[in-house]
């Protein structure tokens, strides 16, 4: 199991499918997660393009309404459950958590491999459900999901398995971060990516079981007619929404916190300056995770909760804004008097901040009760969560991919092509999704296969944007493939970063470090002491 240093291929030295399928190496498992999730990102993206194509015309043109409904369900379910939840935590997290803390592997390597294969089993079950594809939206709201002809029970079971994989991964990371830190790696010397991953793991472990049970009950309602959510038997469809959002709201922080961690890594490296307000960024991750559990009701302001409950959820929701704002201020302050360069990881990190500010500032419209009642279930919401999830998480993911590509593969990317891709993604994204704020404010409901002609212009613009965005992502993927095939050999530390993962070879050896490192300082000691004091 030891990579041969002579080959220069590090942990990638062993070949053959068995060396991957049975591997206990957290890096290989991370790579398998990355490849799987990126594949689903591309498939989910194709569905998105089909949706945009149909919306070119106000009336049904290319697909029937039912087909459109299937497409947006698959787009949402794949992007959420098969891409964005596992991509950063299970992919990049698996690869870099042990390296960041100076460990040889995660705490339970066999459990880690089992998580991956449970994930695979989950998505195979999800694919099996395509014989009668879902048309309920990714929210599975009952009673529609209990009545529709689609294979809801199958899909629920698939997502239950994926949830189990997510729980086991989160558990593994919590134990790893607690118990396997290298000597000297105190909590306040942890890279901020680890703080983000730690907060994310807690949410995964605490929230996922609830949605697991919910999907189990939904499957049982279809199979044996249990009464939990069936109004005809005294059950309550609104209880389903409570259970669903008790998981599915916190899970947006599962998505965003690791991306924030990546941005907190990239910004200091390319500014050559220590991170500003380390403690505030670290603890705000925990604060977001905590407050995130108390705000699920803001998805249900029009679902017949009492006005008092609505007021409490609205009030708490606003307090998510504070720790997120703190992070944004700290990142911007890190740039102050830096020595900034704009390699592709930095471009994506800055894009993250830029788009996340827009996503964040449109949050209060939806947190305030009166405007929420206006904007709920319109395209405004679609725009808001794409700005935070795609503009936020996915840009953070791209930043991480570009940042760590040399470490993971031992090859450098073509920087010029990377920048072209970035420009296309940036323009395409804003054209696609900013128009959705406008059309949503004008009253266009979401999940509409057909719409009244007064919304036509915005939809055409949005579709054009989506084509640009897709082109950008294609160029990026092409660049990754080219980088793998003919990229220049990457040095161990191409960005001159201080965190531990860069102190290994590129690609790293199987057990990461020749000897367990001893940590004497935090990873953000850029800059010179000569500079003026803070």
């Amino acid at each position: 199991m030891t990579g041969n240093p002579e080959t220069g291929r590090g942990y990638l030295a062993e070949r053959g499918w068995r060396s991957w399928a049975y591997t206990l190496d957290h890096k290989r498992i991370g790579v398998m997660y990355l490849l799987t999730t990126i594949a689903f990102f591309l498939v989910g993206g194709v569905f998105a393009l089909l949706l945009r194509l149909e919306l070119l015309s106000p009336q049904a043109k290319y697909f029937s309404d039912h087909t459109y409904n299937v497409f947006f369900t698959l787009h949402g379910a794949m992007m959420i459950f098969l891409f964005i939840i596992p991509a950063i935590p299970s992919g990049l997290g698996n690869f870099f958590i042990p390296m960041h803390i100076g460990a040889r592997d995660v705490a339970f390597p066999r459990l880690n491999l089992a998580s991956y294969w449970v994930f695979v089993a989950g998505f195979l079950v999800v694919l099996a459900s395509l014989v009668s594809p879902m048309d309920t939206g990714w929210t599975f709201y009952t009673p529609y999901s209990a009545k529709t002809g689609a294979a809801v029970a199958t899909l629920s079971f698939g997502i239950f398995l994926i949830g189990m994989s997510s729980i086991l991964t989160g558990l593994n990371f919590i134990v790893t971060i607690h118990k396997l830190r290298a000597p000297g790696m105190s909590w306040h010397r942890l890279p901020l990516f680890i703080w983000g991953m730690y907060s994310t793991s807690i949410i995964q472990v605490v929230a996922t079981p609830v949605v697991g049970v919910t999907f189990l009950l939904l499957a049982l309602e279809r199979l044996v007619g249990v009464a939990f959510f069936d109004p005809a038997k005294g059950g309550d469809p609104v209880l389903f929404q409570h259970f669903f959002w008790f998981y599915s709201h916190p899970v947006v922080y599962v998505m965003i916190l690791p991306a924030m961690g990546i941005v907190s890594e990239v910004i200091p490296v390319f500014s050559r300056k220590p991170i500003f307000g380390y403690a505030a960024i670290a603890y705000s991750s925990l604060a977001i995770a905590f407050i995130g559990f108390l705000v699920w009701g803001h998805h249900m302001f029009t679902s017949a909760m009492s006005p008092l409950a609505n007021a409490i959820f609205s009030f708490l929701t606003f307090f998510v804004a504070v720790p997120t704002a703190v992070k944004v201020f700290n990142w911007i302050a890190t740039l102050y008097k830096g020595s900034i360069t704009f390699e592709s990881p930095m471009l994506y990190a800055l894009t993250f901040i830029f788009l996340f500010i827009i996503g964040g500032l449109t949050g209060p419209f939806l947190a305030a009760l009166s405007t929420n009642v206006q904007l709920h279930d319109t395209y405004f919401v679609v725009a808001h969560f794409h700005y935070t999830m795609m503009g936020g998480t996915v840009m953070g993911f791209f930043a991480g991919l570009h940042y760590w590509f040399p470490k993971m593969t031992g090859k450098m990317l073509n920087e010029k092509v990377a920048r072209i891709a970035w420009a296309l993604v940036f323009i395409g994204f804003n054209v696609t999704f900013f128009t959705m704020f406008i059309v949503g404010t004008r009253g266009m409901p979401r999940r509409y296969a057909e719409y009244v002609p007064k919304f036509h212009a915005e939809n055409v613009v949005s579709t054009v944007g989506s084509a640009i965005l897709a082109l950008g992502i294609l160029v990026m993927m092409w660049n990754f493939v080219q980088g793998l095939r003919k990229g220049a050999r990457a040095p161990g530390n191409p960005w001159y970063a201080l965190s531990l993962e860069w102190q290994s070879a590129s690609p790293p050896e199987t057990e990461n470090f020749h000897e367990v490192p001893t940590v004497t300082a935090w990873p953000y000691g850029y800059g010179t002491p000569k500079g003026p004091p803070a």
Partner: protein
Amino acid sequence: MSSPHAEHGDPAVAFETAKLGIWTFLATEVLLFGALFTAYAVYRAKFPALFQAEHLKLDRVLGTVNTVVLITSSLTVVLGVDAVRKGKTRLLQAYYGATVLLGGVFLCVKYVEWTAEFSHGVFPGTNIFFSLYFVMTGLHGLHVFLGMCVLAYVVLLARKGRLSENYTTPVEMSGLYWHFVDLVWIYLLPLLYLIG
């Protein structure tokens, strides 16, 4: 639980790691059942009369018998852990084997109960109370079954001579899990069988 990588070296660290792992796992289990207990609370508050009337259809005697069976099985687990700490692995096999048997008795009694209920025309889809009853006891029964598998595996490890007073981790972790399963039943009994 998978045992920690050999490279993590120090067995004391490995034990601590496994312990944190199993406690975190139990936390997820609490949330899993927690959702069902929440549903129980919501619907009992909404339909008190229904719960009062329907719970009389359950067999309190068999419920009590099963409680005694499970409490006894927790006792045998404690004795098993104590035995392995003293290095008596044969005794451990006996105690854990007994626990597996008691788990089997529990499931058989459960089978008798469910069969009787089905024959009285009571099904999971009958009403909210029985939906809760069947889902909660069913999920709990599944946990009992998985617990039996894990304990049987520990017995197998002991037979192969892989356990000693220096390596008790699988015994202690599986024991903790069994206690948790037992504890869930201690809540289920009054909530389902012994309403007001």
